[in-house]
């Protein structure tokens, strides 16, 4: 059963020079429940836009994005916010932790907008699972980059999402920590039963996944241009 199903998805932006450019043109893409896929793509190829469309942060020009049977593309913005809060986890390259909040509060905020609200015990348990049980009340800036990424992973899984999106999650990590982070993300998603869609341009990261695809192969505007833009 598909947890994510994309049909005829198009997104364009008006460039500063004036003309409108199509960034994403994906006829079809799907992800089964629990499936883990790594998308290979160069910087500037529209991978982040693609993930933001799936997350409902951006609205598409046309097409459908079915998440767990609900069409994200057809929902109002508040409904997209709610679907994102209930069904999706998002791990960013820059972690995007809130610096004014503690590690524990960052994870709690990942639950705050979902259906069940904040569950401190679960937040603590998730942080213990990623090896941060002694850092609950630290501020993000007091952690190493690898530890910050772990917080981001815990936060992404805080709401028991069906699908986790990871955008260049190792972009700010060194090689050793990058491999550890991918293993952590992959293992944690698998244990939580969440599907994982990860985008990266790092071949060593991509090599850790059984299933990889070229973003250029699924994004028609890139394949028409002959590869990454």
């Amino acid at each position, binding site marked *: 059963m598909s947890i994510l199903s994309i049909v005829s998805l198009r997104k364009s932006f008006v460039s500063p020079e004036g003309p409108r450019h199509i960034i994403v043109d994906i006829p079809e893409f799907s992800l089964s429940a629990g499936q883990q896929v790594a998308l290979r793509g160069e910087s500037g190829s529209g991978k982040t836009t693609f993930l933001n469309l799936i997350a409902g942060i951006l609205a598409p020009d046309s097409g459908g994005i079915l998440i767990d049977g609900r069409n994200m593309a057809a929902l109002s913005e508040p409904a997209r*916010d709610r679907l994102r809060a209930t069904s999706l986890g998002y791990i960013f390259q*820059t972690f995007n932790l*809130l*610096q*004014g909040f503690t590690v524990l*509060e960052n994870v709690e905020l990942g639950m*705050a907008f979902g259906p069940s609200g904040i569950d401190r015990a679960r937040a603590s348990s998730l942080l213990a699972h990623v090896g941060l049980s002694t850092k609950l009340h630290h501020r993000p800036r007091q952690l190493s980059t690898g530890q910050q990424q772990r917080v981001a992973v815990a936060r992404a899984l805080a709401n028991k999402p069906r699908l986790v999106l990871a955008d260049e999650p190792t972009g700010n990590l060194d090689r050793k920590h990058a491999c550890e982070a991918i293993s952590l993300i992959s293992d944690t998603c698998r244990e939580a039963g969440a599907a994982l869609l990860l*985008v990266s341009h790092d071949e060593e990261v991509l090599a850790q996944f059984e299933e990889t695809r070229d973003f250029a192969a699924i994004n028609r505007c890139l394949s028409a241009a002959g590869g990454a833009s």
Partner: protein
Amino acid sequence: MTLPLIVYRSLRQHALSTLVTAASIALACGLLLTVWMVKVQTQRAFVDTTTAFDAVLGARGSKLQLVLNAIFHLEASPGNVSNADYQAIKRHPAVKTAIPIAVGDNYFGWRIIGTIPELFTDVEYTRGRNYAVEPGGRLFDPEKHEAVVGSFVAQKLALKVGDTFKPYHGLNFNPNEQHPDVYTIVGILAPTNTPADRVIWIPIEGVQTMTGHDPAAATDVSAVLVQLRAPTAGMMLDIRYNRQGNRLTFAYPVGTVIADLFNKIGWLDQVLALVAYLVALVAGASVLASIYASMDARRRDIAILRSLGARRRMVFGTIIAEAAVIGLLGAVAGVAVYAGLFGGVAGVIRAQTGVVLDVTHWHPVLVLCPLGMIALGALGGVVPAWKAYRTPVAENLTPSS
């Protein structure tokens, strides 16, 4: 839980600007409360002080000067009233009580007023309250050189029963003009929170016959404080003294004379209120400016919250709540500022007039003004909240890949 946590963390993150902005609101709140309450309470206190007597009879001159001199013990006496005129109004069938007073001496700048013991035994200084002498003391004997001292003077000059003093001539203290007459303090008045607390009271004959005073005026009085049997009598006496006569002034009703004074200085209240409103306006603008200035730094945090599922209206509400909390902090501190400012102003008014203002006296403005400051703070948050509402999420999350 989420919204209070976000507001709390945001306020802590911007602690300095939060404190400065709250301080400006506190100042505005304190000023507004002080201006308002001093105005309200001063009028109330002055009117209460005048309730003891219906009218004052004095020499021809300004009614206001007469009332200020005879009841508030301010200003100079406009002149003397002959004993015959005093006896005439005392015997008038419409007059319930007539209390003569004589002024003209001081003790280290505190006024010495001559009167009769009936002022303390027959007259309520305000509704339902009679004068009382502190335990261990008594009223002066009108036949002797004895004095009863107002509580404020006793405190300031550390006077006690049994002490003696020699008065000084005139209303202002001049060490070269001391009378040889010696007076013994036989009582300290219990506090009345009226101008009577700022006076040293002696028998009226004491002032009239003080060594060095004009013997020709030995039976004159400075003014007569009058209680009437009926208000209509006041109109009749007003016509008799003010329109038909030309030697005396009959200040009636006393409350109206004081109300005229407040009307005359009403512009001062308006100027102070205008200043306070302007300060409030600036305080509201400072909320707007401080939060708006921090919006650039907050855009990423807002985008992160949105990416976690926070709705636009929640982000809007967070900023409004933050601004309102700044207003609340300012309002609470403003009440403290008010207490301090009001205490200072009340101290000056008491020292100058003897009228006591009560900082704890209830008035709806004590709640309405702080609530207004909270609303003003929230209003100041609307523009930055709108900016937060419009923050594009994707642009502020991550560099695109």
